[in-house]
């Protein structure tokens, strides 16, 4: 696509600016600040305490998980601790939670009581 000559000139002028960008001096105290940061890095321990703590926590979690998996895989099902839920059938569940005894009667009674003056 042909572009007007003035636009081409503007483009070339803009590209020419790159060579005219002057070098800027570093801010005052740059060397001192840099050396301070270098010295801080020099005196820093190789591995920080928090990083060590994180690694330790991860290791403990991994060990606990491995132990649990091994225990579950190597122990026969009969020897594993019984689950707290013992309801084997729906009837057991109904008996355990006494679902059969429940009715809406108490609700009706309450409604009747409220209606009485």
């Amino acid at each position: 696509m042909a572009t007007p000559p003035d636009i081409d000139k503007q483009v070339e002028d803009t590209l020419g600016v790159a060579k005219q960008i002057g070098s800027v001096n570093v801010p005052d105290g740059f060397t001192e600040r840099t050396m301070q940061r270098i010295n801080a890095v020099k005196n820093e321990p190789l591995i920080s305490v928090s990083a060590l703590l994180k690694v330790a926590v991860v290791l403990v979690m991994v060990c606990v998980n491995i132990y649990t998996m091994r225990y579950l895989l190597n122990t026969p099902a009969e020897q594993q601790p019984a689950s707290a839920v013992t309801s084997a059938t729906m009837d057991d569940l109904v008996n355990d939670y006494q679902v059969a005894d429940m009715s809406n009667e108490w609700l009706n009674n309450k409604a009747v009581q409220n209606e009485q003056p």
Partner: protein
Amino acid sequence: MPTEIDISLLKAKDEQAFRLLVNTYSKDIYNLCLNIVHNPEDGEDLAQEAFIEAFNSIDSFREGAHIKTWLFRIAINKCYDHIKYTKRKKRFAILQPLFNRDEEPIEIPSNFQHPGIVLENKEHAAALYAALETLPENQQSAFVLYEMQGMDYKQIAETIGVSLSSVEALLFRARKGLREKLQKYYTHNASFKK
């Protein structure tokens, strides 16, 4: 430029040797960072980080290589890591208040005014920097190193780790890309003014 920097002293982590290194190359590294990140505060911070990285990894510096190009490579990597980090942070800034209420979202200054540009060139320079930001990293670095830092092809090749012919190709593509972007920019501006 004084080049009596003793690499063996640097490798021994001698403070005076590092002070000399910082004094010698701070201006070049600062200007390079400034031309890439377009922010004086970030430029200073990244230039300092480049020297810290040099201090930490001086053992990996090969004897016979140029310390200047090695430092430039570290600084360029630092700058692009910073730009990526800033963009990522900006992208997820909307989620930040949910997880971290104290941290403020980072902003990239769009109207950067380079302190080394004369007043009459300010407008052209702003357009150039805006166009430069749209180029791929390697083209951008080749252009900045050649046009703004005054490096030759050999030094650029050593700095960004490519061959001489690749530098030539990168510069060609960078200029072509910049021309296209600038033409669009000025055409749009001209039609807007009418």
